[in-house]
């Protein structure tokens, strides 16, 4: 049991709940406390009487009516905002559903596109010789054999010509040597 319930509440506590007491909106335990205070405290009894009179006069005073046109405008805008929110939610939901549904197809398609782009880049950049990496055909091998023979023949010919040049250069020197 809360010991505070038995003690006299503070003025601030009473003041905060006075209007709710008049409107009948206090919970039962707070209502009981308020009734004990108001019954035993003349100062608060006077203030309660004053608050009751003020509330009665306010309720009896003129209540302005909202112009009908203003009501229509406000309701129209509220409906429009509601519709926009509904459409917006629909689009967002639909787009998310679309993306989620086709992500399984997009990922491999994107991956394959990336691989194709990489292969194209490597080929254009000369990363590998496509004509040689393809399986060699018989004409390829025959051509390569001819090229090999040419190369070896050229090396041999160059060696002979070089040897001849060396011989012709040092020949006279050897002819003039003492042991000749």
């Amino acid at each position, binding site marked *: 049991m809360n010991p505070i319930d038995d003690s006299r509440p503070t003025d601030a506590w009473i003041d905060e709940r006075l209007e709710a007491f008049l409107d009948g909106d206090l919970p039962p335990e707070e209502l009981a406390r308020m009734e004990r205070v108001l019954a035993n405290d003349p100062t608060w009894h006077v203030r309660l009487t004053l608050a009751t009179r003020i509330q009665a006069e306010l309720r009896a005073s003129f209540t302005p009516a909202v112009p009908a046109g203003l009501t229509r405008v406000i309701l129209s805008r509220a409906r429009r905002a509601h519709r926009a929110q509904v459409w917006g939610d629909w689009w967002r939901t639909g787009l998310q559903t679309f993306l989620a549904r086709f992500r399984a197809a997009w990922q491999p398609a994107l991956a394959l596109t990336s691989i194709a782009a990489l292969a194209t880049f490597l080929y254009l950049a000369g990363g590998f010789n496509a004509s040689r990496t393809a399986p060699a055909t018989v004409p390829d091998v025959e051509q390569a054999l001819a*090229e090999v023979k040419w*190369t070896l023949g050229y090396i041999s010919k160059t060696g002979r010509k070089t040897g001849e040049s060396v011989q012709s250069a040092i020949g006279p020197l050897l002819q003039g040597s003492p042991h000749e």
Partner: protein
Amino acid sequence: MSNPILPMNRPFPHWTIVLACLALIRPVLAQDELSQVPGYVDFSELTSQFGEAPTLEVNIKGQLLKLVAEASRADDPELADLLLELQAIQVRGYPLRRAQFRSMERRSEILAGQLEADGWETVVNLRDFGQYVDMYVKQNATAIEGMVLLVLDSEAGETVFINIVGNIDPQEMGRIGSKFTTAQLEDITP
């Protein structure tokens, strides 16, 4: 609606992307492996140095070289055995006009300097009127791993660069090469 090939709930197998990339990279890596061989010379910069595309280009390596070796076995077993010892044959040929001889000579000297800096040993340096011949070899402790021949011939109007990669016997190569006559050479030269 479910995809019969790729069920929606199964993620795309990422390992297939990795394998596809490796399949593409493998040919590039093969070229990189050859570039690591000591007897190999990268001729790719020649085009930029000479300012024009080669009129003669030979690139025989790998599986093609093996196929050529076997194709020659019936007619020339010695040639087949020689080719099986090799890893690559590269040739670049450029036209040479008399007026260009000096400039071509300077460019060839730059290449020769690079070879010497890379540990290639000079076998021949011939400077004759209108003739420039350099031959270099790359050796290990037991064998020749590569050979480079640089030729400028103003009389023939040609500049030729040759790189042979592999286990080379120069005498054997010269002897076997001597069997190929001028007629065969003319069939292939432009």
